[in-house]
């Protein structure tokens, strides 16, 4: 679709870049953003690969001439699903390149297509795993029998996954080579608790914020686009959620959730469902701005159905500030988890739990220090990233 007149322009300006690409380019130029992203990635990777870093199940075990890879039997389905997601996310650029030609011919975004394809693969594989595989859970006795093996590759820090009678002897030990972050009151390795606590933090952060972002985006676009009664009604709903103190609401809702639900998902659900109002307001403001833009008028004139208008044009253009809000939201979710752990409402091992446990015994500084540092670094990094994205979006601050 290039006319002779257009050619000189595009030769000068280069290929037109999408909004996302522009924002990403800006981010690349900010060191704070890159460092933050690197740390986030590192933490996520470490949390995901926790069994390889610290644990009792060896990676490779050779006994009587037979080699086996026990750790893979013990990895839970959730862990496999998470690793799969990681791998698929990392392979995105490849797929994008593959589908680029076809997608651009049709006028669709190659990135979206690639994401859709990967998401599909992920869901199918995940469902298959969950339906067909049951991970090994029995006690492996690997640490005790280490001498019997001809060769055993243990994780970096060989230590029992859960404390038992034997661990008790090692309680409250300061950091050492066997336990880089020391041990807690039950003799359990603190580094291990930090790694697995990272999972809780990330799950709460991403899933809760994911839930609240989805709710906020949907309600915000409906509110901002349709206005009048729709806006009035949804705005009232938002005010309700805004004006009940979130902590009180969380406590009460947590109590209502039936006890058969896993406590972690209960907390995630509750934080997600009570924290959407910020996103809602942002999305609504964006929609108010976008609805009067020229391309929207043009699309409407072309007779596009409303849902397509919203889904393919309005919402994607309004997502940038949402991204900022979501990033800050993740930091906020980690904070909320700490408060809930302080009130003894969290049952899954988490950083908040570690901090609450260790805070009254200041001499065992490695306990509360590790948890405090983990929380601090994570929250700081997400805040830095959020700020960087906000600056990246702002055209006045273009680098």
């Amino acid at each position, binding site marked *: 679709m290039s006319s002779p007149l257009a050619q000189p322009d595009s030769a000068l300006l280069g290929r037109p870049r999408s909004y996302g690409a522009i924002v990403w380019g800006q981010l690349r130029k900010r060191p704070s953003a890159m460092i933050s992203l690197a740390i986030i990635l590192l933490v996520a990777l470490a949390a995901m690969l926790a069994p390889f870093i610290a644990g009792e199940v060896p990676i490779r075990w050779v006994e009587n001439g037979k080699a086996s890879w026990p750790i893979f039997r013990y990895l839970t389905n959730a862990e496999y699903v998470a690793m799969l997601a990681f791998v698929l996310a990392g392979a995105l650029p490849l797929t994008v390149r593959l589908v680029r030609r076809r997608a651009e011919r049709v006028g669709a975004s190659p990135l979206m297509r690639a994401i859709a394809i990967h998401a599909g693969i992920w869901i199918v594989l995940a469902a298959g795993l969950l339906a067909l595989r049951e991970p090994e859970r029995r006690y492996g006795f690997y640490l005790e029998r280490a001498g019997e093996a001809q060769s055993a590759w243990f994780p970096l820090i060989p230590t029992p996954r859960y404390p038992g009678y034997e661990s008790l002897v090692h309680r409250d030990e300061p950091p050492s080579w066997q336990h880089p972050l020391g041990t807690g009151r039950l003799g359990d390795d603190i580094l291990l608790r930090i790694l697995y606590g990272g999972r809780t933090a990330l799950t709460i952060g991403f899933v809760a914020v994911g839930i609240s972002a989805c709710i906020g985006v949907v309600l915000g676009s409906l509110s901002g686009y349709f206005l009048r009664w729709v806006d009035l009604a949804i705005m009232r709903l938002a005010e309700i959620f805004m004006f009940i103190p979130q902590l009180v609401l969380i406590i009460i809702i947590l109590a209502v959730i039936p006890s058969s639900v896993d406590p972690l998902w209960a907390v995630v659900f509750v934080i997600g469902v009570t924290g959407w109002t910020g996103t809602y307001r942002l999305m609504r403001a964006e929609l108010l701005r976008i609805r009067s833009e020229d391309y929207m008028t043009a699309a409407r004139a072309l007779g596009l159905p409303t849902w397509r208008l919203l889904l393919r044009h309005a919402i994607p253009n309004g997502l940038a500030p949402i991204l900022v809000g979501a990033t800050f939201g993740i930091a906020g979710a980690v904070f909320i988890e700490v408060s809930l752990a302080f009130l003894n409402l969290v049952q899954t091992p988490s950083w*908040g739990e570690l901090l609450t446990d260790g805070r009254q015994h200041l001499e065992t500084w490695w306990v509360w220090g590790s948890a405090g540092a983990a929380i601090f670094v994570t929250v700081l990094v997400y805040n830095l990233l959020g700020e960087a994205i906000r600056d990246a979006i702002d055209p006045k601050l273009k680098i």
Partner: protein
Amino acid sequence: MKTYILKRLLLMIPTIVGITLLTYLIVRLAPGDPIEAMIRNQSGNIDPKAMKEDAQKIRERLGLVDYHVVRDRVFGPESRWQEKPELKPSGAVFTAADVADKVTSAVVGYGRWVGRMATGDFGESIKYRTSSGSRNPLALIAERIPVTATLNLIAEALIFFTAIPVGLAAARHQGKWFDRTSSFVMLAFWSVPTVLAGTVLLGFLGKGGLGWNGFPIAGLHSFGYEKFSWGEYLADTLWHSVLPVVCLTYGGLAYLAKLGRASLLENLRADYVRTARAKGLPESRVVYHHALRNSLLPMITVMVLTLPGLIGGSVIVETIFSIQGTGLLLVNAAEAYDLALIMTETLLYGVLTLVFLLIGDLLYAWADPRVRYE
């Protein structure tokens, strides 16, 4: 303008109804029986029949009775919805009839609560009494507000008067080391969880702790404070407030300082500043007299919006420093499903927030003539 205010006030009503109804429903429909749990908790081994009777009495007094209207009228005794329920874990609902009953009771209960509240009866707290013995939720909250409000006011003032100079300096030296460093430091402050800050402060700076044993450990007054003179009393209270106030302040600094900086930068780039400079006005007058005044406006609006938060204390700070404030009261009420207290607090907080929101918007309109509300 008057119609606008009226419209806003009218719109508040459905919101308040929504807030209170949602809260009420959630608390009523929660599984578990808080009253029996409370009795059992307080009295240890008790005859179960006696406990059931007492719980029923208390329930009646608090208006928490379940109505079997739906089960009897709608479903009737022979309906299959009335199957003999198996004892389920949560004990809350067994059959559809029970669900309907519970919901009906909750809705009816809400109606009665509204009715009683209109006559000024806010119900009774299950768990708490004031020091004079009253169970009135309003009295309970009122008893604790002075403490919470004092601490919060001091903290807000500190935040405001620290954030402005920091934001100002950062804006004036934009891009240079002070700007970048202060920005990072503020963000770092914001990222420290209150639990950690409070624990470390108390443990290392409090009396009997590991570091400099200077600061008091608990409460807001020393033992025997009745005998103090006015000056001593004030000094004593302030001294006790230092650590808790620090905990309440450090987090809010970052947000307001950034806001101040951004606001000031925007003003410094504005045309009128350029004009003022072109006119030859000294830089200090340009900044302090013109730009600063205008950039204070969004900051003040934000502060006004945080005023309702003054009555809601921080449960973390209050627990760590043993301060009897509203934060602890409300969180404990939520955990104990103390209906009257939760409802009163929700209502109070909701109304205050909405009113202050309106005031904030009006303030903004009054200060900035460009803003118009129809």
